[in-house]
């Protein structure tokens, strides 16, 4: 009898519909999105690692405001807060009431040269000159120094730091300020 076979085929087709079609899109293809995201992430991380703007301001470090329009760029960074002088993240001397202790200065209280700062800056100078030599003059040592200083500090301390930097062959000062 053909009816039994017919019934079976009918049941088969009916059940068959429950099996998902292999061509159906059951999920989104996220690979291109992932590619894009990874590129953006790498770009962000790269631009972050070279930015000078990695300073945290607070009560001890508040930059003065200025209407200067010169873009900040990378150089040896000397930070003077109300509590310490920091070179490239390494503290070198303590600051108390807007002055460094007379014992760390070469000529005592009336002196200008801050000994530990000179040592550290000379090390940086030697390193940068070595880089200049190894790159065949492509990365020239320009003697640039970025000064990040609190706006309330007395000029005397600033000039002491800048004098010391000048002694270590850093003669081009870039004062970091907040844009108005």
């Amino acid at each position, binding site marked *: *009898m053909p009816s*039994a*076979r017919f*019934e*079976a085929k009918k*049941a*088969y087709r009916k*059940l*068959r519909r429950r*099996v998902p079609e292999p061509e159906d899109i*059951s999920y989104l293809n*996220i*690979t291109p*999105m*992932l590619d894009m*995201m*990874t590129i*953006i*992430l790498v770009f*962000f*991380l790269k631009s*972050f690692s070279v*930015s*000078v*703007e990695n300073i945290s*301001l607070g009560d001890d470090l*508040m*930059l*003065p*405001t*200025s*209407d*200067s*329009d*010169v*873009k*900040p760029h990378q150089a040896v960074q000397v930070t003077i807060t109300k509590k310490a002088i920091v070179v490239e993240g390494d503290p070198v001397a303590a600051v108390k009431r*807007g002055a460094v202790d007379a014992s760390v200065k070469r000529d005592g209280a009336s002196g*200008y040269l801050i000994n530990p700062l000179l040592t550290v800056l000379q090390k940086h100078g030697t390193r940068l000159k070595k880089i200049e030599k190894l790159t065949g003059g492509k990365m020239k040592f320009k003697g640039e120094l*970025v000064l990040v200083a609190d*706006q*309330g*500090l*007395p*000029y*005397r301390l*600033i*000039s002491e730091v*800048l*004098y010391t930097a*000048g002694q270590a062959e850093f*003669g*081009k*000062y*870039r*004062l*970091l*300020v*907040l*844009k108005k």
Partner: protein
Amino acid sequence: MSNGSNELEGLSLRAHMAKVRGRIRRQIAQAEEEEHEGGELNLVPYLDILVNTIIFLLATTASALALANINVNSPRYEEPTAAAAAAQPEPEEAKLNLTVAVGYKGFIVAGAGGVMNGPDGQTPTIKCSVPLQRDRCPAFSVTRTNAEGQSETVWVDKYNYAALAKMMLEIKQKYPQERQVILNADRTVPYKVVVKAMDTLRGTATTKCTGKDGCMFDQVILSAGVQ
């Protein structure tokens, strides 16, 4: 006979159906298995991390500070070499050597001709805009409690920058080629005042330096204090 054949038919039909069901079950299982072990990594957790990191980085960039530089130089003492002396003959006009000092009582302006006196014939050249307090022009910060009970730092700065800007413009008009200024300050003058004085000396423009476009003296040389 008909009963028997019906039974037989029903039996074979049931057997057939069971067979078909088995086949379909196997097919479903296979399809599911293929879905699970499709040979692709599960990238969704990775994507979650990426999205979070990017949002975090974007948020920190948005709140980044607007920073700028002021370029200043230290005084240089260079031995004049024979070649340099030959290449650069002495200029006809004498150098202005404009010097501005931020003193305790006001701005002191000096040039090659000597120190400029104020209107009363005495230094400082530009007086403080208010009467002196403890013999000094007030420029300091005070921390006080505001109406909302939070402490805030307020700057008091009474140096007369407007008068300094006016005087610098007059000097610039007399010496349009001059761009250099030597700046110094007294011992305890706050850094903020020095930076503001630099802004005033530079004028409003930074691109050219003719005096007409607002740029006055942009080549600042810092020197040590006078006291």
